[in-house]
Structure formats: structure tokens, C-alpha cells
């Protein structure tokens, strides 16, 4: 299977980020096509395409749109560009290289769900993205692609950029809505779900950058053509951010169902003389896969789920034998401890507890009994909270300790030695 480029075909061109360059490569042509369709037909097409949310949860996009109440209430479209999952950097590239692709995808989506206003919520650290997207929106307004009566269609749509302040939790859709409303970025209790009551208590659809961009090829080529790519239940292509112990880290667009080992090869393969130890296939919250599991792993929703992990945001972190799993878990646990919003007790207290236990081990003060305690604590954090951050912290803890228990036990037994080594480095 070769790299199939529905979205990133022109990303290598410097001109692609300007309106002129984007239009030269067929930009905004699909929007014209979409305006000739019935909004409901667009929703049906997206539904039929089997497109699933590319942000992490993988919820079918067309189904999500279908949850909107059938009334005249103002509805909002929010683009989740708060790419915070460790290891993920695909949305960044999309916004830096092809801001108009996102804008076009958003106008089509907004037209489909009849939304007069959308916001692109960009992660605060992405200053380059904020710049390119803001400039592109201005270009689009100047060209009559945003604002009143877009391209003579009678459809009115306004778009704005809003940026976060670097909180991971604002990547959760309701956390993002809170932040956008000017509140502390904390997820909201569901139900009500955003499609019924979201931003400013109005029906709201929140989609990831890649999801919104993927609407373009679906409308362009049709649901059938889109569905032909990928696997039966995971259709289309996906951008994977491959990082870690590979020669050529980067973003790669491949059809879903692509073998993991081939994806690693696309990224230049492992460094010379190194052996694969493990791969985190979908961002730091996805359970880790052992080298053995990697051999047969296919990068789609079902196969990874069957292996007890998940596709997540598509951040593939490759771990070779030079890495220490305790160390890595320490970094991951520190991250979730730092990012827990603190609302729900199991997450607020559990993330800190897990982090402290792993760091005790790292400092050479670990006890073998800690490993079982980590598993118990992590198990009780799963599925107990408002949002998925608690699970995101629990899953790596569970998978690391279960699958690499020998390494953890060894570290605990020789803890002082390891800790001293770490200190000298």
C-alpha cells in the first residue's frame, strides 16, 4: 500500500498556504459544489462516508452532526485545533501549510449544519498557526469566501480565531467550550451534550482540524470513493505523527488500516542497531503496544481496539531498546498530573498519586507492592469522571505496568543503582 494523499498532496508547496496558491490547486472548488447541494445531502454524504473524528475519540462525524436539534436555534461550529495530546503534531502542520483547506472544510461543514458562526480554537503555543490561520481568514473575507452571501450562495458565515493558554484539558470538547466562553477550562457535565447545549448554551458541533478538512475530499469525490480507501469500518486516510526512536520523524498520511511496521518504515525505520521495544500508537493516552503486538498491528480503529489500545489522535511514538519504560511512564504520569483540571476527585487525586508512585520508583524508593497499587488506582480512575483525562492517565499506567512488569520490578530491585545513574547523567 502506498501513501495516499487526500489532504496533504500539495503540502510541499510553499504557495499552498496563500489563497492564490490554494485556489491554483483547486481550492474552494468543492465549496462551490457543496453550495449546489442540499445541506442535509452533505450531512448524509459525510454519514455515508464513515468519517470518524480524527481528534482522538473517533466518533462518527455525520452521526454527531445528526444530533443537532431540528429547530431554528443559532448553532455554532467549533474547530478543535488545541492539539494537546503528547506526540501529536498533525493539526499544526495542516494549519501552517494549508490554512485555507481548513477554512474551506469549515465553510462546507457550517453550511451543512446551517451555522452562521464558527471559531477555530488554536492551542496557544502554536503562534505560527495562529498567524497563518488569521491571515488566511482575512484573505477569505477579502475574497468574499466568508461573511455575507458567500460566493453568491446566500449563505452567511463568520469565522474567528481564538487561542488557548496551553491547557491540555481545553482539547476536550466541553473544556474547550468553557474556555471559549471565558470560563476556566473545565469539561462540562454531560448530558446535555454540546450538540444540544454547547457554546453559550446553543447547539454546538466541535470537530478536529483533520476531520473538518476531510469533509472536502468526501464532498469532492463522494462518500463511496472515500469509503473505498481504508478498511471497511475505518474509511479514508489519516495523518499519523510518527516520533520517537525513528530516523525520520514526521507526519505521514496513509489509508487507515496501514500496517504499523510499514508506517515506521515510512518514518525512516529504527536507528541502526536498535531493536523495537514498544509503540504508543495513538498519543500518550493510548495503551502501549509491545514489539510483538506491533508486528501485526494495523493503524485503524478496530485493529488497535482489538489489541487493547486505540488509534487516538494518530500520534505514533516509537520506543526502542535504549529507552527505559519506567522513565517514560514517569514523564507521561507527570504530564497528566500537571494537566488534570482538578474537578473530579478520582482524576484530581489519582493522577497525582500515580505520578508520585512512579516517581518514587524512579528515585529508587519503590516497593514491589506499588506496582499492584498502581494497577488498582488506575483501574479505579477509569470511566469514573466527567471527561476522558482520567482514563488517559490510567490507560498508559495500566498498560506499561502490565506489559513491562519485569522492567518495573527490575528497576525497583535495583532502584538505587538506576537512580544514581540517572543522577550522574
Amino acid at each position, binding site marked *: 500500500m502506498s501513501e495516499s494523499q487526500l489532504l496533504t498532496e500539495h503540502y510541499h508547496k510553499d504557495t499552498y498556504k496563500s489563497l492564490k496558491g490554494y485556489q491554483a490547486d483547486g481550492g474552494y472548488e468543492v465549496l462551490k459544489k457543496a453550495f449546489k447541494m442540499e445541506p442535509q445531502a452533505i450531512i448524509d454524504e459525510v454519514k455515508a462516508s464513515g468519517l470518524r473524528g480524527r481528534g482522538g475519540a473517533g466518533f462518527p462525524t455525520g452521526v454527531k452532526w445528526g444530533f443537532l436539534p431540528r429547530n431554528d436555534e443559532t448553532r455554532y461550529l467549533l474547530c478543535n485545533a488545541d492539539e494537546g495530546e503528547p506526540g501529536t503534531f498533525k493539526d499544526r502542520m495542516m494549519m501552517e501549510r494549508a490554512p485555507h483547506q481548513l477554512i474551506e472544510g469549515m465553510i462546507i461543514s457550517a453550511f451543512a449544519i446551517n451555522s452562521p458562526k464558527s471559531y477555530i480554537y488554536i492551542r496557544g503555543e502554536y503562534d505560527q498557526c495562529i498567524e497563518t490561520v488569521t491571515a488566511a481568514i482575512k484573505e477569505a473575507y477579502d475574497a468574499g469566501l466568508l461573511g455575507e452571501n458567500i460566493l453568491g450562495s446566500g449563505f452567511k458565515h463568520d469565522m474567528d480565531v481564538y487561542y488557548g493558554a496551553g*491547557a491540555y*484539558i481545553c482539547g476536550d470538547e466541553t473544556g474547550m467550550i468553557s474556555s471559549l466562553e471565558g470560563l*476556566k477550562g473545565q469539561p462540562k*457535565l454531560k*448530558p446535555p451534550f454540546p450538540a444540544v447545549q454547547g457554546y453559550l448554551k446553543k447547539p454546538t458541533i466541535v470537530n478536529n482540524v483533520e476531520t473538518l478538512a476531510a469533509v472536502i475530499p468526501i464532498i469532492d469525490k463522494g462518500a463511496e470513493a472515500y469509503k473505498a480507501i481504508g478498511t471497511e469500518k475505518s474509511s479514508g486516510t489519516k495523518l499519523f505523527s510518527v516520533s520517537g526512536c525513528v530516523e525520520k520523524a514526521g507526519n505521514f498520511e496513509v489509508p487507515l488500516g496501514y500496517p504499523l511496521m510499514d508506517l515506521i518504515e515510512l518514518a525512516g525505520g529504527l536507528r541502526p542497531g536498535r531493536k523495537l521495544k514498544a509503540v504508543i500508537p495513538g498519543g500518550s493516552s493510548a495503551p502501549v503496544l509491545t514489539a510483538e503486538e506491533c508486528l501485526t498491528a494495523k493503524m485503524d480503529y478496530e485493529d488497535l481496539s482489538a489489541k487493547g489500545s486505540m488509534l487516538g489522535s494518530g500520534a505514533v511514538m516509537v520506543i526502542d531498546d535504549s529507552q527505559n519504560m519506567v522513565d517514560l511512564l514517569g514523564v507521561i504520569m507527570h504530564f497528566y*498530573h*500537571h*494537566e*488534570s*483540571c*482538578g*474537578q*473530579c*476527585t*478520582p482524576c*484530581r*487525586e*489519582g*493522577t*497525582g*498519586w500515580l505520578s*508520585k*508512585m512512579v516517581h*518514587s520508583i524512579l528515585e529508587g524508593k519503590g*516497593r514491589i507492592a*506499588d506496582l499492584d*497499587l498502581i494497577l*488498582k*488506582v488506575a483501574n*479505579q480512575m477509569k*470511566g*469514573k*469522571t*466527567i471527561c476522558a483525562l482520567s482514563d488517559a492517565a490510567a490507560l498508559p499506567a495500566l498498560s506499561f505496568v502490565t506489559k513491562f512488569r519485569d522492567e518495573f520490578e527490575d528497576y525497583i530491585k535495583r532502584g538505587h543503582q538506576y537512580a544514581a545513574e540517572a543522577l550522574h547523567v
Partner: protein
Amino acid sequence: MFKCTINGHEVEVPEGASVIEAFKLLKEDIAHYCWHPGLSIAGVCRLCMVQIDDGPRLHIACNTLVKDGMKITNQTEVVKEAVRWGMDFHLINHPLDCPICDQAGECGLQEQYMKYGQYDSSMAEKKVKKRKVVDLGERVVLDSERCILCSRCVRFTDEVTKTNELGIFNRGDHSEIGTFEDQPLDNKYSLNTVDICPVGALTSKDFRFQQRVWYLKDTDSICTGCSTGCSIKVYHNKEGLFRVKPVFNEKVNGHWMCDEGRDLYKHVNAPVRLKQILKSVGNEWFPLGLERALDHLNEAFSKAENISVLITAQHTVEEYKALKNWAQQLQDKTINFVYWKNNPESFDSFDGLLIRGDKNPNTKGLLEAGFEFADASVLDSSDLVLAPMPENPAVYPKYMEKLEQLSKLQTQLCLLSVSNITQHETINFADGTLAIPMKTAFEKAGHFINHQGLTQKIHKGRVIVKAALGLDELLQAIKIGKWIQPQLLKSRKTNESSKVSGELW
């Protein structure tokens, strides 16, 4: 109405009720910290876990609506395990300082721990350090380490008082309740945050370190602070009264009461009370023996032709009835009733929540008692003025001014007073003025009628001053010519204060 089954018991709940409300209706046990019936749903403590229709997923009862035919349980091992761990998560960073914590004895954590505790500390790591004695405002102190971040207090200032002084600052296990710069927790209902705090994080400056709660008894009563008439509980022991808390009353105060009302136990306690009968002679107060006092009373009331009663709306329905009966029996005398409103200008004000300008618990009761009120000018021509004083003269300054005026006219007064009358040094009471200790609303039983016309009962609680009389009891003594309970009157301490001279008779 929806029918559902909770732990095997069937219950009918109104449509739109949540699962936790159904549990409460059935009085079935369910652990929870963040849910409070008077506030919005936060869904953050994650303790009210239930299983629905035997499904594998756990749901929080507070944010789940009951559907017809739903089968709900919180008795399965999965739920119990989740609650046990939920408790552990609450406790790992909570200080073990129950022995010095004011909440001990009425603490949500202690209660749930007894039911769901793991009884074996599994946390070997260091606890998170947070701020200790944080001064949040005029009345409330915060201990952040004890706080379990249920956000009840934050929601209270957001939703009930709409003053928004409190917020949760920082993230994760470093989250803390706090106030914004230069905006202390300073609203008229701030102590409700202490009541709804399920742990010892928010404590009342007034009550902290005063008493262990298990040494306190409580009596149901009605707040006398204004005509709203909030339902309250008064907490007391042999050392006196210590605090007042609101009791849920759907018709009157909901779950809340104001801070002003919380202070209304202070004038009841012994140090500020009048404890014996005093007589003013030559601008000095002298204690009066029981027999002498009775003689004096009888003499004063039989001699006087023109008697006025300076009455306020602070007495019970029963006392007004006694007053009316007493007056009807003295047909040979002129008896005028003067209704004393303290603050006519702000009398009808209302803050939109609970506080009313009418600072009397029984205005409706007085007005409905059927008195014919005379103009205040009749006081000046009276031989004797019977003045059952307002309980707390501090909030009734004009009443005291009137007494001062009358004293200047050398009018004979018969005062029935809660507070120690000798502290009013500026007033030169006429010779022969009697001051008799009066019962407070917490020391007598009876009824008040609030502004809505709702008749509410007050219960006799702890008697602080044994010699104190109710208005009805005083009138009875005058009528029958002997004390109702002389044994009690005798048992008082004789040496009241340095301001009282030695016994004259």
C-alpha cells in the same frame, strides 16, 4: 409520576427527578459530597455511583434522570468498590487532624469513612501541602488542605447570593478555593458556605474552637431577626448558646439563612443578661427581694389609673393574647397600647433573598391580636408604662430613646428586659422604675406569624436565666398577686455586676 426500583424497593418520583432525589425520597443510603438540593449539579465528587438496569457502566445518581421502570442499585460489589476508592481518593491528601477540626462529629468524610473506608492507608507518598488558616472574609476561615473541592461554596456564591466571591484556583491536586484580590467573602449570607461545606475546610470565625459538636444539643426554633422567620436550629449546652444554623423549610427560607440571624444567640448568653429584678432609686439600680418586688409591682399597678403598654412585635402570639386578656380584666383603668415600629422608613424593604426590613418575628401576630393602638403621645401622660423591651435593644435604638424621653418626664416604668439594663448609664430612669428579667425566644415556647402569614412554632430550649419571665408570666403574677415560680426566682445569683449597689431592702 415515574415508577422506579431502588435496591429492590419500588418508589414513585415526579417526572424530571434525578436518581439521587429518588434515593433521598426513599431514605436509601447514598454517598455524596458535591450534590446539594439547593444548588446546581456539579457531578465532581463521583461518589453517588449507581448501576442502572444491571448495565456494566456506573452512572452518577445526581446527573441521571429517573426513567419509568428504571432499576437502580448501589449495592453491587462494583459500586461499593467504586465508592470505597472514591473515598480513598478524597482522603489521600486530606490531613488527619480530626482531633483539632471543628467539623469532627458532623463531618461528611468521617461519616462516609465509617461506611466505605478502606481502613488501611495505602498512600505512602507525601501529601499535597496547601494553605492553612486563610482569612476569606469577615466571618469565614478556610483550611485548604481539608477542602475536598466539592465546589458547593463556589456554587453558593454564584447561584444563591450571585456575589461570586469564591472561585477554584489552580489545577489538578493543587486546586484551591479562594477569593479574588481585594474581594473578600463578604456577603450577608456568607456563613451558609460553612454549613454546606461537607468537611472542615470552611469554618465560622465565631464558632471555631468554641465547642466540640458532640457536646451540643439542638433545639428547633424560628429566627427572630426579621419577619421572614427562617427555620433554625439553636445549638447549646450548659455553658450557653453557641451557634445557629438554618433548617430546610421549603415555604420560608429554603436551605439558607442570613449572617445577621446567626448572631442572635449572643444576647441570650448569660454575660449580657439581666438576671434579677432591679429597682431604680436616685439614678442607681438596686436588687429587689422577691416579696418587695411583688409588693412594688402590685402597688404600682393598682395605683396607676392611666397605664400604657409600649409593645413591639417581638413577642409570641400567646403573650399578646395574655396581654389582651389582662387588659380586658382591668376595666376600671385606662390602658393604652402603643405599637412601636422601630424603623418605619425601611420597614418594608426586602433584599430579594431572605432579609426583610421589618426586624420583628411576629408583626402579623401582633397586628392580628386585635389591639387598638393609640398614638405614641399617650405615653407622655401615662402614670405607668409597661415596656416589654425588644430582645436586643442594639437593633432597636429608637425604643431606647423613647424610654429615655419618658424617664426625663419622670414617668414610672416597668421594664421587662433581656439585656442588662444597668449598661444604659446615660438614661436617668425615674425613681421606682422596675427592671424585670425577660425570657428570650429561645427560652420559651409559642408561635410567631411571619410576613407570609405562616404560623410557626418555637420550642423551649435551654433556659439561660432562670429568673427570667415571659410577658404572660409577668402579667399573671400581677393579676394573681404572687409569683408563678418563686423557687426559680430565688435561685438566681444575687451579685449581678459591679454597677448594682447592695440590696436596699
